[in-house]
């Protein structure tokens, strides 16, 4: 079987600009999400995720324009998340040309949003983003960019969300995020085994082996990372070559 595991770069976007964009030689403006997206497409990314971290809600419309412009030149699937509160927000992003939206805080506050949005737009375009942090026995879901504990168990939450109709889980380990010590494999495995929809592992990637582990031991369908792809030694192509040589099917 040749169904490929996916490698997904994530771009944090604030008021239409990429945060922590790195200057590549062949890119004019590292802060332009459209140029970055195009570059990642050329470098072999399977999908892209834009995370809109714009704090002020009146400036969120900027993202719609980013999505429009990305769709003009990028022909791989892309997901947009961050601050989408209701059906109208979701519709605006999908209409602008995004393939999927990811919901996080708004889905915890109002689980019916998952049900309603997947009914209207189809499960395939509704991704549930889960920020999970280790607790005594299992993992707890956090919202508001990891600032607010909810008391909800992550495994129970993803099961519920799958039943409500979401088509994919974007799972971030808050403990591993930023460490570059590898993904939280027990968490990734627990979530992947709890649901029958694809799981994207996120948080902790530092090298190709970490990604290999997430896709094999962690049973994830895709691996998401941000900063490591900026460096040539961890280019998407090199990571995919490593995966392929270790019998993980990838699109090369």
């Amino acid at each position, binding site marked *: *079987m*040749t*169904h*490929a595991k*996916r490698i997904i770069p994530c771009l944090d976007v604030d008021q239409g600009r990429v945060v922590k964009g790195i200057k590549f030689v062949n890119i004019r403006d590292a802060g332009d999400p459209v140029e970055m997206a195009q570059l990642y*497409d050329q470098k072999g990314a*399977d999908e892209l995720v834009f995370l809109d971290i714009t704090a002020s809600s009146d400036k969120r419309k900027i993202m719609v324009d980013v999505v429009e412009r990305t*769709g*003009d*030149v990028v*022909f*791989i*699937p892309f997901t947009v998340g961050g601050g989408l509160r209701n059906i109208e927000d979701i519709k605006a992003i*999908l*209409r*602008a*040309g995004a*393939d999927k939206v990811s919901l996080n805080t708004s889905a915890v506050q109002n689980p019916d949003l998952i049900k309603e949005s997947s009914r209207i737009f*189809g*499960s*395939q375009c509704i991704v549930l983003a889960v920020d999970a942090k280790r607790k005594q026995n299992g993992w707890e879901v956090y919202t508001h960019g990891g600032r607010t504990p909810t008391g909800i168990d992550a495994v129970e939450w993803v099961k519920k969300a799958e039943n409500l109709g979401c*088509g*994919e889980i974007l799972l971030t380990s808050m403990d591993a995020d930023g460490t570059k010590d590898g993904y939280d494999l027990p968490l990734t495995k627990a979530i992947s085994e709890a649901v*029958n*929809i*694809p799981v994207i592992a996120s948080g902790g990637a530092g090298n190709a082996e970490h990604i290999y582990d997430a896709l094999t031991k962690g049973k994830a*369908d*895709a691996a998401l990372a941000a900063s490591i792809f900026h460096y040539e030694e961890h280019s998407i192509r090199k990571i995919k070559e490593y995966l392929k040589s270790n019998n993980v099917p990838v*699109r090369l």
Partner: protein
Amino acid sequence: MSVKIGIIDYGMGNLKSVYKAFRFLRTEPVFIDKEEDFDCDGLILPGVGAFEDGMKNLAPFIKILNNEVKTKPLLGICLGMQMLFSDSEENGFFKGLDYIPGSVKKLPEDGLKVPHMGWNSIEFLDDDPLLLGIKNDSYFYFVHSYAPFCSPDYILGQTEYGIKFPSIVAKDFIYGTQFHPEKSGEPGLKLLKNFIGIVESTI
């Protein structure tokens, strides 16, 4: 001279990516939402959603479409491809356009995640201008739970996901892809470009 590609807009899903892909390829795409708009060189039947809804929404255009496909190349994408076939078992039994003999059936779920979503490779079974310059076993982007099954005579390429199913089909100038070429990166754009070439060759 740029060919005029008509994208049939019958209210099934977002057609923007298809439109943008054709614009990126320097053609002149237009949306077709009434009979007079069928004045195009080539036709695209896109679509996302359930088969029954698709056929219901397409009903006002079926008569003219039946006539147009006698002389113009048509490319069905995803649900648009499935509707080219005789019938579908999705949520019951529904008649399709019947341009290509065959039936749409649910993918088996044994141990696999359905919908089949993501990148999968295609084994080419036949030569065709649609596949010019695309490497065998290239990856394309799929999102679907059902697939058509038909005689090998109409299969240009097949994909394995639990079972092998036809992922590129053709009969005369009627083409269909189960995947989304407009979301399949370089090989997807190449396929659309080849379709434009086929359209050019017919005018």
